[in-house]
């Protein structure tokens, strides 16, 4: 008799087990996620979207990094006793939504929500597939955080994150760069040529022969002080040998003839072509994220450093473009074939915009200055940003991880790499580095703490 009923019992147990297991298999999410990983995973996603959205540009990418970094900080700042919102300090931003004092929040859920919504808003032009990827990350992180969060708190946090993202996005729309990807190359742009003026490149990165975003320099900076920076100085045009101007270009010419393997690798590594990568600004955001993962700082520190770097890079590009179009200077590929060697060609192709000052230098210096404000300058780091990329066939260079002994070394190599690439002179880099540091200090000097 027992034997007769045992299978029925087993069958029931099995069904219960299967149902139980299937329920448990619905939730493959871990029970927790380190705080710094939430910020880092959103930085990863920001970089993924930057890299995988067509018609990307270094200018537009830097702008988004500024807002995404700021949104990280504003999402968690009210949960920290020592820090305060930047509303009222940022250019034309009087206020941002405040959390309700009677409510409790999970600040990481706020961050998770605001990052997702803002990224989809800023990158309105990204593919539906990419938008699903953003939703998927939001959903995954939310599922983990929800496990240790009261339902009501989770719901209030989502509402606040939504409100915050909407407010930042609304503010962003008036900065001059909103949907800037639609006007990368203004067909109506015209500048009368003059001695030493920029000419569209023949060895070019872009098929457009109009320069990129000629009005980007008019955009609103994050820091009001950065709007008011004075013009740097530029060496006067001269073609005579021994002149300072000529020497700038002969130095580029001679360097190209004697590039070492290391210098070639640096030139390729930092090229950060926006058509294929997350652009120069994204590269520094990536390094910031590597330092966050390595040092595992608190949530507020992680978010703050992403905000500082993002906004420094964004302001650096605005100022850089302001000055590029003010001076409208030629690249070595214009001067050298005309006055030194007609057959000369730079190691790396020209980007579609004027030379002075170097965008790579200014933004790398700005980012490094912001980073050094949080991490020690002598922090050693390994940069794996382009590991796994197919080698550069034209120049036969592999993409291998690079090591640095200090943060400033990263900035210096970023700037030098453009000199090795033959697309910038030393003065482009020098002024870029100097101005980048000034721009970042104006971001660092916000009253971040109460």
């Amino acid at each position, binding site marked *: 008799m027992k034997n007769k009923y045992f299978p029925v019992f087993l069958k029931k147990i099995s069904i219960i087990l299967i149902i139980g297991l299937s329920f448990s298999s619905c939730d493959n999410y871990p029970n927790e996620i380190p705080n710094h990983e939430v910020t880092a995973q959103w930085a990863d996603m920001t970089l993924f979207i930057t890299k995988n959205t067509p018609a990307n540009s270094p200018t537009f990418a830097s702008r988004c990094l500024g807002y995404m970094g700021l949104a990280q900080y504003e999402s968690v700042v009210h949960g920290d006793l020592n820090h305060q919102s930047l509303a009222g300090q940022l250019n034309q931003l009087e206020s941002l939504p405040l959390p309700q004092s009677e409510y409790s929040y999970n600040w990481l859920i706020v961050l998770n929500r605001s990052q997702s919504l803002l990224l989809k808003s800023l990158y*309105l032009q990204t593919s539906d597939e990419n938008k699903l990827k953003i939703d998927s990350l939001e959903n995954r992180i939310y599922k983990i955080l929800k496990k240790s969060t009261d339902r009501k708190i989770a719901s209030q946090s989502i509402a606040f994150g939504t409100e915050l993202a909407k407010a930042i996005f609304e503010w962003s729309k008036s900065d001059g760069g909103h949907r800037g990807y*639609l006007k990368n190359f203004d067909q109506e742009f015209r500048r009368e040529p003059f001695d030493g003026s920029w000419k569209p490149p023949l*060895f070019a*990165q872009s098929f457009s022969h109009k320069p990129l975003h000629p009005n980007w320099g008019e955009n609103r900076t994050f820091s009001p002080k950065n709007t008011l920076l004075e013009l740097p100085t530029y060496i006067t045009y001269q073609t005579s040998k021994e002149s300072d101007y000529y020497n700038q270009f002969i130095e580029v010419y001679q360097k190209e003839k004697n590039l070492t393997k290391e210098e070639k690798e640096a030139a390729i590594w930092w090229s950060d072509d926006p058509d294929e990568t997350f652009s120069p600004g994204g590269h520094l955001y990536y390094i910031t994220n590597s330092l966050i993962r390595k040092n595992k700082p608190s949530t507020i520190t992680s978010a703050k450093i992403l905000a500082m770097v993002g906004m420094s890079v964004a302001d650096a590009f605005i100022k850089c473009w302001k000055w590029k179009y003010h001076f409208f200077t030629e690249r070595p590929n214009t001067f050298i074939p005309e006055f030194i060697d007609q057959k000369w060609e730079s190691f790396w192709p020209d980007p579609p915009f004027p030379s002075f000052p170097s965008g790579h230098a200014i933004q790398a210096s700005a980012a490094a200055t912001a980073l050094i404000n949080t991490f020690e300058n002598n922090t050693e780091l390994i940069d794996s940003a382009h590991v796994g990329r197919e080698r550069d066939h034209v120049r036969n260079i592999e993409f291998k991880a690079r090591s640095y002994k200090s943060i400033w070394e990263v900035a210096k190599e970023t700037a030098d790499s453009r000199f090795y690439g033959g697309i910038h002179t030393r003065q482009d880099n020098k002024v870029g580095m100097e101005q980048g540091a000034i721009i970042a200090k104006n971001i660092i000097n916000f009253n971040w703490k109460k």
Partner: protein
Amino acid sequence: MYRRIFLLLCFSIFVKVQGQQFTDITNRSGIDHYFEVYEGMFGGGIAVLDYNNDGFEDLYITGGMQEDQLLENLQNGTFKNVLKTARLESVLRFVTQGVAAADFNRDGWMDLFVTTITTKSQKRKIPRAQNLILINQGDGTFKNNSKSFGIQRIESFSTGISVGDFNLDGYPDLYVGNYFTDYDGGLKEISDATIVNAGKTAKGYLYENKGGKRFKEVSEKYNIDHRGFSFGGIFTDFDNDNDLDLIVNNDFGYKAKPNYLLENLYPKKEFQYVGENYEMDLRINAMGGATADINADGFLDYFISNIRYNRFMIQDPEKNIFKDQAEALGTQLFTISWGANFNDFDHDGDIDLFVSNGDLNPNCVPMYNFFFENVNGQFKEESTKFGLKDYGVGRGSAIFDLENDGDMDLIVVSQKPIREYGPPSITRLYRNDIEEGNYLQVKLKGNASTLSAHGARIQVFSDSLFINQEIDGGNTSHLSHNSTLAHFGLGKRKIIDSLKVIWPGGEITKMNQIKTNQKIFVEETQEFKKRRSNLIWWLIPISALGFYFFIRNKKKQHKI
């Protein structure tokens, strides 16, 4: 009196020797044309065709924002634009780019394929449009058969067209280059996402001609899956195995996708990427090209036009690689090149080279065209001496025989400069007045092959001379289609010892002891075999099966 006549004679001889070797007869020829760009640098081209079968070569020139022209050769060195009487008005709606000619439906009349980038009526946010097939009706008119040929649905940004019977069925197939991504079914909705995607690289079209009635896009079937900013391909038999391979020219090869060399694996329905092995994966701004066996070793070589320095790819058949010999051969001059045409313009028994140059509109720095005279295997730039030093914004160029006088003349399309520009920039016709040396012209008539025998090889032997020429399928040069007339300069030779035609597929026609200074006509002996439709092989078993079930059913009913 005699002294005066003598002096006059001497002066005439002097003028002949010292004067221009080509004469610019644009004004007196009745050609009034320039190409107007839509935005920036793209277009235009010329196709040479005898559209009315009167034995004189006519021209079709694309106009971009201007009107295209069908120029009927009036047999006296002048032309008449007959575009409208030929009922080609439908092209006027489009911003045209390139053109090629072939008898697509094998009715004995030359048809046209024209590429476009957008329509003229309204400025589109994303410029795209369908391409056009214009079928010659044999009565001086054409009919736009794009719909029935099945190409109307796709809106593309198309460039160069090459004609070649890659599957050896006798119908002219096509490779059409695309620069930016296309839209099958047209652009229905324009969002920010579609706008940012519009500037991406594109796939080209490998069009298989299905019985002269429609084109089927078969690139996937034939294992062609690359993308690129392409100015199209060139059908050519680079490996001498009697089928047509494909060279694809891509702009921004150093950044986006390089040039591709695709080996036709006929009879397998497959092309194989062999560019890296042959070192033909050029990573340059490849704009166009020209084909010739420049060192007479039996294997074809290729001139690829580029920004700054062109490439002269000489084939090494022992190592199975190509090497750039531009510097060694003397053609490495700084410029921006588009069209290129090989021909023995001066009939001295070696092959010269014309190169059409022009800035990237709207940049407007004048740069002159090149004429490289072949002097003992070295190329010397002699555009001034030969009267070809034009500073127009050059693009496509083509060679043809204007007056059936045995030498090859030249037409070069120029763009209207967007900005102020010193020299005039118009399409120019140059009559070849060199009158040196002997020549032979060969006109092939394909039967098993396409009517013009695209891709056929003609080899001429005359004492120490060996010339090896491929019949042009189009898009050698830039967006253009040269004459399909084979032309050989022979110097002082009066007799050709032998002439060999290698028809696509490998059939050979041989001829001996041919007198020079004439045009000969050679017809393919192998007959065209119309392939039976595959449908019949499906219909037979299906019908048999149907019949079986019908009988079985009947029997069952009978039993009931």
